[in-house]
């Protein structure tokens, strides 16, 4: 039982002439939350659907709980939340969840699960009459009702309002605390940073970076501010200590990296005063996963 929850080696998936997954290797530890982070079209869903047994790999190996993903015994041990759909539109969502529960030996109480997700009032509502966020929650409930060892959540919070998103995050934290392995895909870096033990950043079907959120963003801090676009950063750099860096990205948003301390702050504000520039939203922050992604790929996450 020492095999990882998911182990993927050199995975390749092609659709016609498009290569969706291009030699991807990753490992998701048992009892941990692993986030696969990347922009739309990066290969997240293809990767997860191969792990779920929906698609076959064109190359490489995939092991889920130490088994080939096509093994039927995995279906009772693995919970799945699809990115969309999966529930008959005319079916009451409480009825669907009870049906899913009846496929398992010792399921959770469907009514209690709906209550936990704030859906009690909608148990008798047909699935198609629910809002997108409510449908997502029903689908999430279906993934965990069978008390699985491992759950795959494909963009679990896409389209959720903040309240529903927090209910979902809480459930993921509780799953982890109960010893369930969680693999989720997302393009929200805040979600990956908050929830996961391990983040795998992928782009164009390949892993571009991975690690804990802290190791990816690093200990380095940055000074950020907004001002009119096109400031002469070269001049600012000459005033800053050696090893500092300054950039404008996107226009009007400035990021200064280096030894961020009182001295650097004073230098920057003094320079702004000399230039007659008011720096808005001045703050000192750690890098975010979004910055990491931008640095690694030169592209925005969303």
């Amino acid at each position, binding site marked *: 039982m020492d095999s990882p929850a998911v182990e993927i080696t050199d995975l390749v998936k092609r659709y016609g002439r498009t290569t969706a997954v291009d030699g991807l290797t990753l490992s998701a530890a048992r009892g941990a939350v692993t986030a696969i982070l990347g922009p739309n079209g990066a290969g997240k869903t293809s990767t997860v659907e191969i792990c*779920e*047994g*929906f698609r076959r790999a064109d190359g490489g190996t995939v092991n889920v709980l130490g088994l080939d993903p096509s093994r*039927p015994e995995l*279906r*009772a*041990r*693995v919970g*799945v939340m*699809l990115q*969309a*759909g*999966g*529930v*008959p*539109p*005319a*079916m009451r969502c409480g*009825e669907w969840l009870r*049906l*899913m*529960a*009846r*496929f*398992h*030996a*010792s*399921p*959770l*109480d469907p*009514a*209690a*699960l709906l209550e*936990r997700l704030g859906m009690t009032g909608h148990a008798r509502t047909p699935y198609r009459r629910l809002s997108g966020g409510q449908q997502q929650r029903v689908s999430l409930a*279906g993934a*965990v009702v*069978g*008390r*699985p*060892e491992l759950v795959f959540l494909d963009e679990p919070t896409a389209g959720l309002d903040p309240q529903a998103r927090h209910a979902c995050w809480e459930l993921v934290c*509780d*799953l982890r*605390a*109960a*010893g*369930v392995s969680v693999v989720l895909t997302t393009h929200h870096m805040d979600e990956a940073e908050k929830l996961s033990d391990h983040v795998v950043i992928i782009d164009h079907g390949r892993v571009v970076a991975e690690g804990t959120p802290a190791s990816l963003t690093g200990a380095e801090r940055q000074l950020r501010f907004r001002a009119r676009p096109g400031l002469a950063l070269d001049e600012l750099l000459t005033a800053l200590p050696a090893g500092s860096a300054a950039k404008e990205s996107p226009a009007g948003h400035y990021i200064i990296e280096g030894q961020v301390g009182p001295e650097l702050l004073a230098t920057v504000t003094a320079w702004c005063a000399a230039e007659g520039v008011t720096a808005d939203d001045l703050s000192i922050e750690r890098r975010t996963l979004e910055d990491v992604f931008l640095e690694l790929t030169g592209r925005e996450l969303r």
Partner: protein
Amino acid sequence: MTMVDGTAGQDLTPAPGAAPLPAMVFAQAGAEIRAMLRNGEQLLLTMIIPVLLLVGFSAAPLVNVGGGPRIDFMTPGVLALAVMSTAFTGQAIATGFERRYGVLKRLGASPLSRSGLLLAKTLAVVAVEAVQVAVISGVALALGWRPGGSPFAALALVLLGTAAFSGMGLLMAGTLRAEATLAGANLVYLLMLGCGGVVFPLAAFPDSVEPVLELLPISALSGGLRAVLADGGGTPLAALAVLGAWAAGSLLLASRTFRWE
């Protein structure tokens, strides 16, 4: 299945395991039956139209059915139509949309196996057919229907007909887009209703066409049921052979071509 309540029902600690296969199949079959009986269009197709045809064509001398009471001619045809409406039309449309909405895909990730799902669908179709047969026979008996012949031969025809129509329905649902299945299944239903000896005797068609129409599964079922129930005939071997050929061919093709997504 054990369901714990209160706080224990919230215990997320892994306790994986599939329910026993019969429990899963009955749960799924129950859901399918409820869906069929709750769907207005399906009820129109499976219950209302057959009963209206039975009453209407038995009462009014719209078509020449040859000798014998009209109700004895109509009832077997309407029973055949009822079997087709549930096993073929209803099942094709429902399964086509289940495929479109990812329902089949999601079930593929559940402990219910594909063979378990097909078994559940078959059970649901047979259960709805039992309700149809009870309703239609009740109305027919009230209208003076006096069936004869072997009930076992009639049952064999209905079961083989169900297999043939299910195969055709799943073949459409598993290969075409949901909208195309909807249109196609209704078109086939109408053609079979018109040309399959349901309410219009095949003898009314030109001699050159009649032998071809006799090879349709609906003609074999309605003709076979009529031979058994109305004429008190023995085992209708020709009809069973036609239905068996359709069942084998369509189920084989469906199992080879069915796309779950």
